[in-house]
């Protein structure tokens, strides 16, 4: 008997008792759907976190002024440390694993426009920093090298800050007063979205002015130099984040005259490192394990159904053997039957799981999520690999659930089943 005929035979038997077949298939359908959906979901979660953590800059390393820790210094020397533009220049020159370095300053200030006044975060930035942040423009231009050189009173405004400060009638060219000084809006940033890793306000709420303008208007009252609130360093790529950190720490420790191992003196933060500490892969692994367990339970259901079916059809098997079926024919018939059942259930499961993943990824569904939450709801990532994995797992279940009953069926003694009681 050819596989095709065994398969046709198996499908006939599935159709003969549709309700029982469907009930038995449910576990398998659900398990397959769960494997596909949870794998896609997990990939979506990873992307969502990756994006949300790196919205303020890809492959970013950031340092703030630190303080010498007790572990590395006698009790008398517990100085606060600070960074200046010279530190930025030194890093730019000596950190080979980095392609961009920038200094940044920030403070809260009152922004006023046509009678509206709001307290917002103002940042002193330079072009390299803007490039590291990688925010697209909605209109106008970014702060340029010339703006910094000439300490111009120009302003680039975040998307939400624009809505709140300028309202409907504000645009590029408008004048905004920041703590009493007038700045002309030269650019409006595009929407950045929810930042799971941020230093202060979200970029959407920030006002950017040239670093030099900032230093001139709001000098540090305690220090004779231009102090920076932070230094941004971009690693050349994700793989070089750790190497860039090592170099960065060595350069800064040397310049500050502290021990390189003193992480309190040179605190370096990186969203990539933070992401690594999140148990995303573990959670995904656990999800898939649970889904595979469901699939296994579905497989056990099919095993039970098949064993039952063999028991019920002993005389049928006897008749087939009497009519010239070889043991191999009987074995294959039941094996194919098991595979056919798993294939039907698996196809339904793939449709359900993939359908669910596609639904949650669809614009129609995304549109219903409140905008404030949208950035944090993962978009399931359905891929051929995901489906292939589910199909592979199903294949293993099919063989496991089909083989034992088929083996049992093939060993039935025809004489015994044909005896009339």
């Amino acid at each position, binding site marked *: 008997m050819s596989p095709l005929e065994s398969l046709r035979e198996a499908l*006939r038997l599935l159709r003969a008792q549709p309700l029982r077949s469907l009930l038995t298939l449910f576990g398998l359908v659900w398990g397959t759907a769960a494997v596909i959906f949870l794998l896609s979901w997990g990939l979506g979660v990873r992307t969502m976190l990756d994006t949300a953590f790196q919205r303020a800059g890809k492959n970013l390393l950031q340092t703030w002024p630190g303080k010498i820790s007790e572990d590395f210094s006698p009790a008398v020397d517990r100085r606060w440390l600070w960074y200046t533009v010279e530190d930025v220049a030194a890093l730019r020159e000596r950190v080979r694993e980095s392609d961009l370095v920038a200094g940044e300053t920030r403070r809260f200030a009152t922004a006023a426009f046509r009678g509206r006044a709001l307290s917002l975060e103002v940042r002193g930035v330079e072009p390299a920093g803007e490039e590291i942040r990688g925010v697209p423009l909605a209109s106008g231009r970014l702060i340029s090298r010339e703006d910094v050189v000439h300490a111009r009173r120009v302003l680039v405004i975040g998307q939400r800050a624009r809505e709140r400060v300028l309202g409907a009638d504000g645009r590029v060219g408008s004048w905004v007063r920041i703590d009493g000084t007038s700045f002309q809006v030269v650019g409006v940033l595009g929407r950045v979205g929810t930042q799971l890793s941020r230093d202060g306000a979200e970029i959407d709420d920030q006002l950017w002015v040239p670093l030099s303008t900032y230093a001139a208007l709001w000098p540090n009252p305690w220090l004779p130099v231009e102090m920076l609130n932070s230094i941004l360093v971009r690693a050349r790529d994700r793989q070089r984040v750790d190497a860039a950190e090592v170099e960065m720490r060595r350069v800064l420790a040397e310049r500050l005259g502290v021990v390189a191992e003193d992480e309190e003196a040179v605190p370096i933060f990186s969203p990539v490192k933070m992401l690594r500490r999140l148990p995303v892969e573990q959670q995904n692994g656990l999800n898939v394990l649970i889904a595979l367990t469901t699939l296994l339970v579905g497989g056990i259901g099919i095993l039970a159904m098949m064993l039952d079916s063999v028991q019920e059809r002993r005389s049928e098997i006897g008749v087939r053997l*009497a009519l*010239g079926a070889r043991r191999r024919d009987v074995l294959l018939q039941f094996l194919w039957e098991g595979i056919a059942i798993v294939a039907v259930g698996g196809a339904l499961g793939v449709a359900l799981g993939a359908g669910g993943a596609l639904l949650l990824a669809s614009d129609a569904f995304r549109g219903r999520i409140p905008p404030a939450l949208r950035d944090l709801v993962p978009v399931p990532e359905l891929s051929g690999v995901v489906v292939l994995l589910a199909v592979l797992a199903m294949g293993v279940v099919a063989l496991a659930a089909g083989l034992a009953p088929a083996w049992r069926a093939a060993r039935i003694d025809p004489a015994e089943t044909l005896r009339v009681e």
Partner: protein
Amino acid sequence: MTAAIRLADVHKRYAIGETEVHALRGLDLEIERGEYVSVMGPSGSGKSTLLEILGCLSQPSAGRYWLHGVAVDEVDADGLARLRGEAIGFVFQAFNLLPRMTLLENVALPLLYRGVNRSARHERALAALARVSLEHRAAHRPGEVSGGERQRAAIARALVNRPSLLLADEPTGNLDSAHGLEILTLLEGIHADGATVVIVTHDASIGARPPRRLAIRDGQLEADVRGVA
């Protein structure tokens, strides 16, 4: 020419639970090709066990069996399956049609295991059904036809491979006498066409019809009578 069937000192023992049944105790028998034979005996005499051995469904515990000169104990499992499918036709008391299949599909089953293609299967199964006057029932399932029709379909299935040996185990046991006679007439027609036919029965009126009549008791041949009863 070799005999259709030759048994030499055949024994059969099997266990039912913890008791061992000695169903056949040294049976010697020869049946020529084209013979029409009945096997009679009370229940438990071993006549069904004999039929199982003749049909290659089970092997003797001791002794030997030659089917058309072939020593059955020397044939491997696949070879036995082929013998059952090609050389032997079975008719059972309980018909043993597969309930989920149509009569046509039931009749075509032995052809399926011989690897006959779909259209040839269809054609030959339909011809076999015509032989038992059931072609108009081809698309029905066994549950939709009468007992007599079921047994006729079972005979068509036994015929479809044109076996040289037809084994019938109480073929009329589940039928009334009118339908029983119809079945016997069919079996006798098959014999007339040249097949060796062996009918196992405990019904004396049926057992008396064939020209050669065997009686079995306690696993041994009690009588072997030839000629018109």
